[in-house]
């Protein structure tokens, strides 16, 4: 068929390139748009792995809502003022090293604890309904708790936006 590993590789490259742009681009709005493209790339990867529902969530929530929030916030602020903030060289070097070490540490832990799950094969034919049954029967309590978490977030958002900074 027309789909080869080429599609997978180019999808991963697509996501990786825009991830790099997010980190290195100096213009925050461009970075936010790259973030959007990265999310879309992730959606494609999930799709290729056979997880249709995850693709939907990825596009609807991450690309359709979270990235919009980022773009929005960056447009609302006065970006000319923020351009003057340049982190000192030593600090960014230190932060970079810590971030890289942390990433490798987390990856090592994940890889050594979950060797069974690291199959490179695609998911077995899991229909959406099997997944949903699991969500609403086995993982019922976390599902219900997630809504409480979102309620908490709503309250927090309202309080943040109501806070007045005294002139």
């Amino acid at each position, binding site marked *: *068929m*027309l*789909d080869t590993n080429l*599609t997978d590789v180019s*999808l991963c490259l697509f996501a990786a390139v825009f991830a790099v742009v997010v980190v290195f681009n100096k213009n925050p709005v461009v970075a936010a748009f790259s973030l959007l493209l990265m999310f879309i790339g992730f959606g*494609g990867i999930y*799709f*290729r792995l*056979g997880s*249709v*529902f995850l693709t*939907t*969530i990825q596009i*609807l*929530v991450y690309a*359709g*809502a*979270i990235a*919009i*929030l980022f773009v*929005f*916030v960056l*447009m*609302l*602020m*006065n*970006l*000319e003022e923020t351009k003057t903030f340049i982190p000192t060289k030593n600090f960014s070097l230190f932060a970079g090293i810590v971030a890289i070490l942390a990433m490798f540490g987390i990856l090592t832990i994940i890889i050594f604890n979950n060797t069974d799950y690291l199959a490179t094969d695609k998911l077995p034919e899991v229909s*959406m*309904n099997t*997944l*949903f*049954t699991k*969500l*609403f*029967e086995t993982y*019922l309590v976390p*599902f*219900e708790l*997630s*809504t*409480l978490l*979102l*309620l908490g*977030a*709503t*309250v927090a*958002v*309202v309080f943040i*936006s*109501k806070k007045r900074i005294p002139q």
Partner: protein
Amino acid sequence: MSLFPFVVFSVISLSIGLVLILISNILGTKPKTKRLHDIYESGMDPVGSATKRYDIKFYLTAILFLLFDVEIVFLFPWALSYQSSSIKPLMLAEFVFFMFVLIVGYLFVLLSKSLDWEE
């Protein structure tokens, strides 16, 4: 699963826009006056710049949309799996609880006047 049809479709859609702009770039006349390149502000000289601070209401709208969107996305799998489920009363109870919390959250936002645009 195959992404190929999607790729073909997007490439063709993208090229429609590109080709149209290219054609108009070739055929269109070039502007002769410098004034055309100024910021449009109804013929006046522009006052201030575009990168000013905008109302926080927009931010609030976006983030509240995000929160409610996540909650409603949670309901998609619920609605799709309800009819084939063997434990309908439990599913209903889950749903009612979920909706209850969602509506409480909504009422909180409403009563905190975060949704009011007129001041």
